[in-house]
């Protein structure tokens, strides 16, 4: 295998005068053959060969983006290697068209890396060309792609000596253009997803009053509160494939403390519990939508262990999809054809006992395949 380092191809259209280094973007891209013409990148090579799960495997100084055949997880191909500051992994996300990966990363040469240090936002295209689009964004907020795959949203926090500072959602275009969508000084903001037609971005706000859901046009106009999601911390926000519902989990106190997953009708602003028949000590979290509109959540059992369960569009009784009595299956996402569920299987009967965790693929027959020996594995997306 010929390893081609493409660092020289790094372009910085938005940062022509910046101080970024090529090494900060990092990247190795592998090709099998070279015939005197531009060889296909490893990313290109995995295109058009059916569904592939892309994962990010953490390394102390460099994360590997690996394409895996869900039908045979031993078929793996590293399509990119992203350098980063020591100890701080990257957050990569595959574009909707499957032709690019956007990521946030702390530069490899960061003077003193920290989760709140300014991070890079960059994109790797299908040819393996890495382009840094910003060097001042928040590491821990993964990019949110626009439906047309031409841009993505990143968050930028500007700290202040007192208080939380400001939070800005930026639209970073792959051609280097950059625009501000919204800026908040009264709450932290978290981009969630674009509406399927790209007309709006949904984002959550979080402050002492709870979690709210907003929508705003990509040009920053028409910012509107959609719903107050919770007086508590809501998280795991997932927009349904048709853009009609938002699933999220929230930890509720009160007479019957529970972790529940809810679905919100975006049109009406009405929320309902996803698992309506459940009662007692509930722990349902980590929702993931299937392409058919069914919702999958992790459900911790009273006796310990947690299964991935599926509920219908309108909610209802949970149907068990996986069985895990010794650990908890956290749904991460469905394959495009809806036949395979990626879960993070975390050892331990309860969340407090969480131990080793691995990403596994579960098919309709309940067969499980571990996709990586590593523990620090993130889902980048699915190639169709």
């Amino acid at each position, binding site marked *: 295998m010929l390893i081609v380092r493409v660092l020289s191809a790094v372009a910085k259209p938005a940062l022509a005068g910046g101080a970024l280094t090529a090494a900060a973007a990092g990247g190795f891209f592998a090709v099998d053959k070279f015939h005197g013409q531009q060889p296909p990148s490893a990313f290109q090579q995995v295109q058009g060969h059916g569904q592939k799960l892309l994962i990010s495997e953490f390394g102390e100084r460099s994360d590997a983006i690996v394409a895996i055949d869900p039908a045979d997880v031993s078929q793996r191909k590293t399509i990119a290697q992203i350098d980063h500051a020591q100890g701080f*992994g990257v957050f990569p996300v595959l574009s909707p068209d499957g032709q690019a990966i956007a990521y946030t990363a702390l530069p490899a040469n960061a003077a003193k890396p*920290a989760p709140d240090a300014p991070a890079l936002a960059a994109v790797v295209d299908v040819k393996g060309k890495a382009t840094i689009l910003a060097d001042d964004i928040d590491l821990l907020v993964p990019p949110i792609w626009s439906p047309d795959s031409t841009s993505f949203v990143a968050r930028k926090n500007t700290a202040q000596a007192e208080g*939380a500072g400001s939070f800005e959602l930026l639209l970073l275009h792959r051609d280097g253009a950059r625009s501000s969508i919204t800026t908040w000084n009264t709450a*932290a903001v978290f981009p969630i997803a674009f509406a399927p037609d790209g007309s709006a971005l949904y984002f959550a706000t979080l402050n002492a009053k709870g979690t709210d859901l907003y929508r705003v046009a990509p040009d920053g106009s028409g910012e509107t509160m959609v719903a107050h999601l919770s007086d508590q911390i809501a998280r795991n926000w997932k927009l349904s494939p048709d853009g009609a519902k938002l699933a999220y989990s929230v930890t509720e106190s009160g007479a019957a403390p529970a972790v529940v997953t809810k679905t919100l009708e975006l049109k009406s602003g009405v929320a309902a519990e996803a698992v309506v028949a459940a009662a007692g000590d509930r722990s349902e979290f980590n929702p993931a939508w299937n392409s058919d509109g069914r919702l999958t959540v992790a459900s911790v059992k009273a006796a310990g262990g947690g299964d991935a369960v599926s509920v219908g569009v309108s909610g209802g009784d949970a149907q068990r999809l996986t069985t895990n009595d010794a650990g908890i299956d956290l749904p991460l996402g469905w394959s495009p054809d809806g036949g395979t569920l990626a879960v993070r299987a975390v050892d331990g009967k309860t969340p407090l006992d969480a131990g080793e965790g691995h990403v596994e693929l579960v098919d309709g027959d309940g067969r499980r395949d571990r996709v990586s020996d590593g*523990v620090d594995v993130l889902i980048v997306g699915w190639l169709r």
Partner: protein
Amino acid sequence: MKMGGREGLRRHAGRLPAQCLSHAPRLLAAAALSLTALLPLRATTPHAGACAFVDPPTTYEATEDRKLYLRAMELAGNDMLFPHDPFFSQASIEVGTRSNRTNSPDVYVPPSLLKAISWIESVTSQGAGALPFGAIGPALVSFDCGYGISQVTSGMTAPVGEAGQPSDQQAMVATHFAYNVGRGAAILLDKWNAAPSDRPIVGIDTNSDPHIVENWYYAIWSYNGFTGPGANRSNHPLDPIYGSWPRTPYSCGPSTDGLSHNRSLFPYQELVYGCAAHPPQVQGQPLWTAQPSTLPDLKNPYWRAPLDLANFQYPYNKMDLPTPKPLHMDTTPKPDLLARLVVLGLPRLAVDRPIVLVNVRPGQSATPAEVRISNDGSGIVPWRVSANKSWIKVSQQAGVAVGSDLACKPSAPCERTAVLKISVDPSKILGSDAAVVRIAGLGGGGATQDVAVFVKVNVAIGVPGTTKN
């Protein structure tokens, strides 16, 4: 860590891990040190916009096994390093519940937590990243003025001594690992003692006993910044910024131990507890005995309800927690009295001359004089330089002289005797003059020695080689 409102900006040190450092090119380190030697002399007047020191002062970086550092932490944890010192420890520790809080003289921090914090903060290193172990060279200073092992930022962002100079305490924190460790422990204790007036308590069912490692949950959180949802970097365990829950624990151990090693995924206190339970390995050995602990059960209302969003408001009096169960005591043995002697030694400052002469061509140049600062005793003498005239320039504001009892790696830069260059600003000298440079031996090194600086002005009268005094 920070004491004030900027505490949310805590950052981790960018230091190569031990296993990488052991292979670090020595030439690179040597080159860096040579470069330092070529830097211009520093005026003793203050500089704006810098940290406590214009340039990193020199320090002693102990051997890679970090035994000396870890022993210092064991002493600090048991308040045997600088007992009840108001700056390098605390006079007392608050114990008890919110309604029953009292001051106890039994100052204590679980040493395992100090060790884990030091690894998270600096990979347990006092020296700069390029400085090898078993060497003398520049101290570790982060861009946000975090100094040394504990990455002390509180009080280190600007010189706070008289006449705009660094203070003795700043010099000790920056140059001597033991004072740095002591200061780090003092700040952690300060976070603990901030309860109940400014922070919540952990251990409402265990009298908030500081010997229980779980009871330090909020203090550790505060060490990095008691920031919650809505902050730029929240350490709240349920904050959406940490995408996955439940989380595989963090580990400082080998990458193959089946646990997480990605710092991006954890609030600070989970990094520290994870590191304490899964210590780093150096030279094939864990740096300390694994210290297990239990995190608050976020599914159980006893622990979860206090962490409700509505409760995260100053003075956080609704956030008090029971001790997470099962609880754990730190099993690190209490060090014996000799341990302090091993860590601190019996340093004794010595300066090789009381008078120096500096030749000056006004408005042109000055020829520096040199004095040698050594340690006739053992351990480390941190020292700080000051002058009574603003036109005096010195090559270092502070540094160390290292006794022969401390190990140096054969190939590493390790000048135990410091060479201080004294010069003057020729643009400010009009005629022959005199000044006093004071070299203060700090800590146990106690003595202060003055060096008289006589300035001889040489005026060129037109014929090269001829001067008029």
